[in-house]
C-alpha cells in the first residue's frame, strides 16, 4: 500500500507538469494582449516597455520555467515558514518579528491607506523573493486566492456535506424498498436533480424565495462577520439558497450510486447467510450491506470533490458569492493571465490529489484489493 501510494505520488508529478504546461500554452499562445485593456493614449514605446516588464516577450519555454519556479518554489515559501518546529504563514512571521511594518491580513489598498508614506510593499515583493502578481490588482495572486478561499469553502463544503447527508439515506431506503413508491419518487427526484442545471435551479430559487416570497437574500454578502446570534441568523439565511442548489445536485448524483451499490450487495450470498444466522434486519442492512456498499460510494464522493469546485463557478456567479470561481471569471474577462493560470493549476492539483485519494481509499476500504 505504501509503495503504491509513493509510486502514484511520483507519477502525479509528470502529470501535473504536463497539465501545467498545457494550461500555460493555451493561455500563452492565445492572441490576447495584457496591455489591450489599458488606455489608448499610452504611446507604443511605453506599451512595449510595459510588455517587457511583464515578461511577455521572452521565449515561451523561458516564461514557462519562470512561472513554474514561481508556482512550485517561491509561492510555497511565502505560504509556509518553518522555524523552531513551528509552521507560520510567511507574512505573519515577518510581521511578528517586526521585519514587516504592517499586519499581513490587510489588502493592498488598506496598506496604502494606513501607511501612506510607509514602505508598505518592500518586504513582500522585493526582499523575500518574487511572487506571481495579478495584472489587474498588482497584488500577489495567492493573496487573492486566500481572500476568496473561505467563502468558497463555506458554501461548497457545506453543500457537499448536505448533499451527502441527503443522498445516503435516500439511496439506502430506495434500494431496500426497490420499486416502492418511495423508490419511484426518489429515483425521479434524483433524475431531475441530475438533469436540471444549477444555473436554472439557482435562478428559479431566486425567483421563488427571494423575489416572490422574500424569505432569503438573493445576493451573498461576503462582508458579513458572524459575531452574535443576529449575524449568525443572517449568515444562515444567505447560505441556504446556494447550499440547497449545490446540495441537491450533489445529492442526486451520489444517491444514484448509493442505490445501485446497495442493490448489487443486497442479493449477495453473505446477506442470506447473515439473515439465516438470525441477525436482525437492521443489523443486516446497516452493518453488513451498508459497509460493503459504501466502498464505491466513498470513492465517488472523493472523486467528485474537484468537480464540485468547478461546478461552484456557476453557482457562485448566480448568487454573487465572491469565491474562487468568481475570481476566475473576472480574471478571464479581464485577460488576467497569472490569475487564470494559477487558479486552473490549483484545480488540476485538486483533481490529481483526489483521484489519488480515491484510489487509496478504495484499497483501504476493500481488503480484497491489493495494489502491490
Amino acid at each position: 500500500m505504501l509503495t503504491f501510494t509513493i509510486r502514484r505520488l511520483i507519477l502525479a508529478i509528470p502529470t501535473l507538469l504536463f497539465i501545467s504546461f498545457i494550461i500555460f500554452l493555451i493561455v500563452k499562445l492565445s492572441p490576447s494582449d495584457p496591455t489591450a485593456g489599458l488606455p489608448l493614449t499610452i504611446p507604443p514605446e511605453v506599451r512595449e516597455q510595459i510588455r517587457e516588464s511583464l515578461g511577455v516577450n521572452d521565449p515561451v519555454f523561458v516564461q514557462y520555467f519562470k512561472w513554474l519556479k514561481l508556482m512550485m518554489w517561491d509561492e510555497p515559501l511565502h505560504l509556509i515558514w518553518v522555524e523552531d518546529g513551528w509552521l507560520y504563514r510567511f507574512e505573519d512571521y515577518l510581521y511578528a518579528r517586526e521585519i514587516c511594518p504592517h499586519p499581513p491580513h490587510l489588502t493592498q489598498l488598506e496598506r496604502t491607506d494606513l501607511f501612506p508614506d510607509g514602505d508598505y510593499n518592500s518586504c513582500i515583493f522585493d526582499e523575500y523573493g518574487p511572487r506571481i502578481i495579478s495584472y489587474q490588482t498588482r497584488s500577489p495572486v495567492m493573496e487573492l486566492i486566500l481572500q476568496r478561499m473561505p467563502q468558497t469553502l463555506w458554501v461548497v463544503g457545506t453543500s457537499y456535506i448536505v448533499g451527502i447527508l441527503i443522498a445516503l439515506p435516500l439511496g439506502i431506503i430506495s434500494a431496500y424498498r426497490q420499486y416502492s413508491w418511495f423508490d419511484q419518487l426518489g429515483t425521479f427526484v434524483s433524475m431531475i436533480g441530475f438533469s436540471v442545471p444549477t444555473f436554472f435551479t439557482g435562478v428559479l430559487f431566486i425567483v421563488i424565495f427571494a423575489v416572490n416570497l422574500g424569505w432569503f437574500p438573493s445576493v451573498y454578502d461576503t462582508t458579513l462577520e458572524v459575531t452574535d446570534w443576529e449575524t449568525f441568523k443572517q449568515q444562515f439565511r444567505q447560505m441556504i439558497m446556494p447550499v440547497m442548489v449545490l446540495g441537491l445536485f450533489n445529492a442526486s448524483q451520489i444517491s444514484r450510486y448509493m442505490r445501485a451499490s446497495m442493490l448489487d450487495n443486497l442479493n449477495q450470498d453473505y446477506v442470506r447467510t447473515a439473515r439465516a444466522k438470525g441477525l436482525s434486519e437492521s443489523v443486516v442492512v446497516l452493518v453488513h450491506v451498508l459497509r460493503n456498499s459504501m466502498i464505491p460510494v466513498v470513492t465517488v464522493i472523493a472523486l467528485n470533490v474537484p468537480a464540485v469546485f468547478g461546478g461552484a463557478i456557476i453557482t457562485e456567479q448566480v448568487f454573487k458569492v465572491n469565491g474562487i470561481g468568481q475570481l476566475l471569471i473576472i480574471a478571464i474577462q479581464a485577460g488576467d493571465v497569472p490569475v487564470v493560470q494559477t487558479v486552473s493549476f490549483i484545480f488540476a492539483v485538486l483533481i490529481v490529489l483526489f483521484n489519488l485519494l480515491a484510489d487509496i481509499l478504495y484499497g483501504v476500504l476493500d481488503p480484497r484489493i491489493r495494489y502491490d
Partner: protein
Amino acid sequence: MTDAPKQPLATSGATPAGAAPVMEMEAYRPPRNQWWDVWDQFKTHKGALFGLGFFIFALLFVYLGPLIWTLDSQYIDIRARNTNHIFSCLGVGGGWFSAQGWADWFRDMPACLGDPEAFSTANPIYGLRVSWAHPLGADQLGRDTLSRMMVGGQTSIAVGLTAMLLALFFGTLVGVLAGYFRKVDGLLMRLTDLFLAMPLLPLLLVIIMLFRDVLRSAFGPEGGIFVLIVVVIGLTSWMQTARVVRGDVLALKEREFVLAARSIGTPPWRLILRHVLPNVMSSIMVSATLGIANAIITESALSFLGLGFPSDFPTWGRLLFDATDWLTQNPERVIWPGLFISLTVLSVNYIGDGLRDALDPRIRGR
C-alpha cells in the same frame, strides 16, 4: 433506433448457442430483427418513452415551429416590451382561499384569455401586460419570446448533436485503437487519464475567451462561435466513451468470431469496421445520449456565463442569462428557456437509461 438496418448484424450475440429448447419453441415465429426486441424492451421503460416523446416534440418545436409561428425572432415590437406570457391570465382573481376570490377568477380569467390587451388596460390592478400577439411574452426590446425560443433551440440542439458526434468520433477512435492495438494502448490511455485530470470548465472558459475573436473574424460572428464551442466541447468530453469502448473492444478481441475473421486474413481495419464496431454500438449509443445532455448543459452554462453566443443570436442558455437581468421586473422570463433546457436534458437522460436497459441482453426479454 427504430430505423433498423436492412439485414441482421452478422455477429450479434443475441442468439445464444446453448439454448436449444428455446430455439425450438421460437422456430415457428417469423424471423425478426433484433432491434425490434430492443424496441420492445425500450417500450416498457415509462421514463424512456416520455423522454423520446419530449425529445421528438422539442425537435419538431424548434425546426418546424418557425414555419407555423412565422414572426421574426429579431423583429422589435417596442410597444410590446416586457409583455408577460399568456399563462399569467391563470393567476388573476382575488385570494385562493375565499369564495369571492374564486368568483373573481371565474369572471376575470376567461375575459383575460379572450381579449388580453383590453383586459390588461381595463384592469391595471393586476399589473399585467398580456397579448395573444406574444403568447410567451416579449423581452425588454419587444422581441417575441416564442420565436426566440424556437431559434434558440435550433442552436442549442444543433450544438448538442454536433458536439456529441465529434466526441463520439474521437472517443470511439481512441477506444478502438487502444483496445485493438496493444502498442498504442498505454500511450492513449495515459492521454485519456491526462484529459480526465484537466480542470475542464475553467479551461473551456479560457479557450473560448481567448480564441473567440480570431475565429469570429475567420467564420463570421455566429459561425465562429459555433465552430469554437462545438470543437471545444467535443474535444473535452470524449474520455468516458473512449474508456467504455476500449473495455468492450478488449473483451471482444478474445471472441471466436474475431479469431475466425482474422484467420481468413481479414485486414485489421476491415475487421474493426465489420466485426468490432457493430458490437460496441450499444455502448456507443448510450454514451451518445449522455453526450447530448452534457453538450447542451455545457453550452448553456457557457452562454449563461456570458461567454457563449452573442446576445442577438439567441440560444436557450443565452435567453436564460439575459432574463436574469430582469428578475425583479419580469421574473417569469427565466422559466421558458430553463424549462426547455431541463426537460431536454431530462428526456435525453431518460432515453439513455432506457437504452441501457434495452441494449443489455441480460435484462432484455426478462
